[in-house]
C-alpha cells in the first residue's frame, strides 16, 4: 500500500502527465471565483459548486481543476463541458472495469462507488466510500434494493450480508479484516459468478474463501467434496452451498445447526431420510435440543472422508471416540447402533425390518378388530336404546 507522501508524489506525476500546457492558463482560485458559490447549478439543475476545503483535503487536492477538466482552456468556458475521464490516470482500474459487470460507464460512473468527485479519499481513510467498513453500505445503494432484483434479476443481498457473521464482524466489531463485498467479489474487475474466471464462480469459491480461511480450505481440499470439485465434479458442495454466500451464520449457533441437515440432505437424500427416522433427528427437529448430532457432528464438516478411510470419524475404529463425544460411556456394543438404519429395508436391516413389521401388524390388527367391534356395538346399543325408549313411550333422545 502506498504511503500518503508516496501517493502525493504519484499525483503530482499524474498532474504533469495530463497537463496539456506547460503552465495551466487558470489556477484553482480562478475557478473557485465562481464555483465556490454553494448554490451554483448548471442548466439541468445539478450542483456545480466545489467546496474548497473538502477538495483540498481530498486525495486529488493537489491537482489543478484543469488536470481533470482538461477541455477547459480559458474563461469564459462553454456551458457544456466533456465528462471527466478518470481513466486518463487510473488506467489499470479502467481496464479492470472494462470487462466487468459494471462496465457500462453511464450506469456505473466511478463516482457511484467512490462518491462525490471533489471529495475522494484514499481507501485507507475512514471518510472514503470504499474504506473497508464503508464498502457494504456503498454497494447497498444498489444491491440493497428490490429494484435491483427487478432490473437485473439479482437478489437484494445487503440485508442478508449485514446480518451474517461477516456483517456483524464488520458493523458491530468494526473489524477491518472482516469480509466485505470486495473481499469475495473483487473491486473493479467484478465478474458474474457464471464466468469461470470469477472469484465467486463455484470452482473458485474454496480458493476465494481460503484467502482468509486458509486452514479450512486446506481441510476441505483433503475431503471428498474438495477432491470432487478439484476433479471437476461440480455437483459436490463448495463453501457457499452449506454456509450460503451472504447470510453466513456462526456454525455453532442453533439456527445454523437446525438448517444444516436438510442442506446435506438435498444431495444425500436416502441418508437424510433414514436419519430422520432416528432419535437424533426427532430431537433435533423440535428445537431446544440443538446439541443432537447433525451430519457433520459425526462425519466431520470440511474434511468429510468415506467411512472406509481410517481418518474418518465414522470409521469403525473411531466410533467409540466419536459417539463418546456426546454419549459418555459409549462402548463397542453401543456403537453398533446404526444412525442410518432403514427399518423398511429387509436386506440391510432384517431384525429391524421384522420388528417393525410385527409392530405394524399388531397395531393394524388390534385397531381393525376393535374398530369393527366398537362400531357394531355402538349401532346395536343405540338400536336397543331407541327401542327401549319407544316402549317406554318417551322420545328418542
Amino acid at each position, binding site marked *: 500500500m502506498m504511503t500518503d507522501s508516496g501517493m502525493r508524489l504519484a499525483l503530482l506525476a499524474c498532474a504533469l502527465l495530463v497537463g496539456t500546457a506547460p503552465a495551466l492558463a487558470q489556477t484553482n482560485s480562478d475557478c473557485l471565483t465562481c464555483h465556490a458559490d454553494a448554490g451554483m447549478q448548471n442548466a439541468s439543475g445539478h450542483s456545480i459548486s466545489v467546496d474548497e476545503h473538502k477538495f483540498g483535503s481530498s486525495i486529488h487536492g493537489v491537482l489543478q481543476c484543469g488536470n481533470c477538466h482538461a477541455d477547459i482552456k480559458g474563461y469564459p468556458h462553454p456551458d457544456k463541458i466533456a465528462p471527466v475521464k478518470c481513466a486518463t490516470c487510473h488506467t489499470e482500474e479502467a481496464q479492470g472495469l472494462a470487462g466487468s459487470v459494471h462496465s457500462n460507464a453511464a450506469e456505473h460512473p466511478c463516482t457511484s462507488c467512490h462518491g462525490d468527485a471533489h471529495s475522494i479519499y484514499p481507501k485507507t481513510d475512514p471518510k472514503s466510500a470504499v474504506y473497508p467498513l464503508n464498502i457494504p453500505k456503498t454497494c447497498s445503494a444498489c444491491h440493497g434494493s428490490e429494484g435491483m432484483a427487478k432490473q437485473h434479476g439479482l437478489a437484494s443481498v445487503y440485508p442478508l450480508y449485514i446480518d451474517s457473521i461477516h456483517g456483524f464482524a464488520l458493523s458491530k466489531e468494526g473489524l477491518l479484516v472482516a469480509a466485505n463485498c470486495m473481499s469475495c467479489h473483487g473491486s473493479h474487475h467484478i465478474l458474474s459468478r457464471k464466468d469461470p474466471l470469477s472469484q465467486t464462480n463455484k470452482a473458485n469459491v474454496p480458493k476465494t474463501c481460503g484467502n482468509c480461511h486458509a486452514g479450512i480450505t486446506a481441510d476441505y481440499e483433503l475431503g471428498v467434496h474438495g477432491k470432487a470439485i478439484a476433479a471437476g465434479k461440480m455437483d459436490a458442495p463448495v463453501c457457499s452451498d452449506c454456509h450460503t454466500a451472504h447470510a453466513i451464520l456462526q456454525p455453532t449457533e442453533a439456527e445454523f445447526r437446525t438448517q444444516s441437515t436438510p442442506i446435506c440432505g438435498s444431495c444425500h437424500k436416502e441418508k437424510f431420510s433414514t436419519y430422520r427416522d432416528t432419535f437424533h433427528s426427532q430431537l433435533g427437529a423440535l428445537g431446544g435440543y440443538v446439541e443432537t448430532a447433525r451430519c457433520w457432528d459425526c462425519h466431520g464438516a470440511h474434511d468429510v472422508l468415506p467411512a472406509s478411510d481410517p481418518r474418518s470419524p465414522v470409521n469403525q475404529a473411531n466410533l467409540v471416540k466419536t459417539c463418546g463425544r456426546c454419549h459418555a460411556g459409549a462402548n463397542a456394543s*453401543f456403537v453398533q447402533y*446404526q444412525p442410518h438404519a432403514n427399518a423398511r429395508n429387509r436386506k440391510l436391516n432384517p431384525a429391524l425390518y421384522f420388528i417393525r413389521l410385527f409392530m405394524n401388524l399388531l397395531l393394524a390388527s388390534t385397531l381393525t378388530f376393535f374398530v369393527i367391534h366398537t362400531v357394531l356395538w355402538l349401532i346395536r346399543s343405540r338400536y336397543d336404546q331407541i327401542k327401549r325408549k319407544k316402549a317406554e313411550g318417551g322420545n328418542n333422545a
Partner: protein
Amino acid sequence: MPDLDRVVDVKNVQGHAEGRFFQRFTRAQRYMHAVLFTTFLGLAGTGLPLRFSQSYWARKFASGVGGFGAILFFHKLCALVLTVAFLIHVKDIIQRGIVNREKGIFWGSTSMVGNWKDVKDLFGHLRWMLGLGPKPQFERYAYWEKFDYWAVFWGMIVIGFSGYAMWFAPFFAHFLPGWALNAVLVIHSEEGLLAILFIFSIHFVNTHLRPDSFPMDMVIFTGVESEEEFKHKRPLEYARMASEGKLESRIGEKPQTWQVNFSRVIGFTAISIGLILLVLTLSAYFGE
C-alpha cells in the same frame, strides 16, 4: 324454588336419584386410574411431537413450551411417576395374591386373568351385535375390560423397557446388542402409537361414549354405581353377590353433587385432550 331445582339436578346426576349405590372401585383403584390417565396424557402429549417431529403442530408446540428440553423433561417425569405406580400395582398383586393368598386374584370370577367364558362372551357379544343371539351376561370384568387391562400392562412393560433403554443407552449397551438400540425406538414409537390410538378411540368409546354410559362412565371417578346400572351391565356378578349374600357389604354412598361435578370436569378434560391428540395423531400419520 331453588331447593326443588337442586333436587331435580341431583336426580339427573346418575339418572337414578333413589335406590342403592354399590361400590365397584376402591379409593386406591380410582387414584391408580387417575395417576394412570394423567401420566398417560402427559406421555402422549410429549411423545407425539417427537414421533411426528416434522409436523407443523409438533414444531409449534415444541417452540411454545421451550423446545425439546422441556418436552423431554416432562416425558421422563411422567414416565417415572407411571413406573412407580406400575411397581406399586405389581407389589399389590403379589401382596394380595401370593402373600395373603387372597382368592380371586389370579383366577375365578373376579380375576383380571382371561378364561374360557371371556372367549365365549366375545363371540356371543359379536353375535348379539349382529342380531344373531342373546346378549351375554357379564361378570365383574367383561372381556374388553380385561383386554384394556392387559393391553396397558403389556404396553407399560414394552414401552417402559424400550424407553429406559433409550434413556440409558450406554448402560443398556452392556448387555444388549447394538441393533437392539435401533429396535427400541421402533418398538417404543409403534407401541406408543398403538396405545394412544387404542385409548383415545376404542377405550373412550367402549367405556365412556357408548349409549349405555354416554357421555361418561362415572364409576371410575366416584367408585360407585347405581343398583340399576350394576344389574344391567354385570348381571352375573350381581346375581352371584346376591346368592352369596354379599350384596349388602358392597353398598356404597350416593356420590355428592360436587364429587360428580368435579369428576366430570376432570373426566371431560382428559377425554377432550385425548380426542385432540387423536386428531393430531391421525392428521400427522396420514399426512406423513
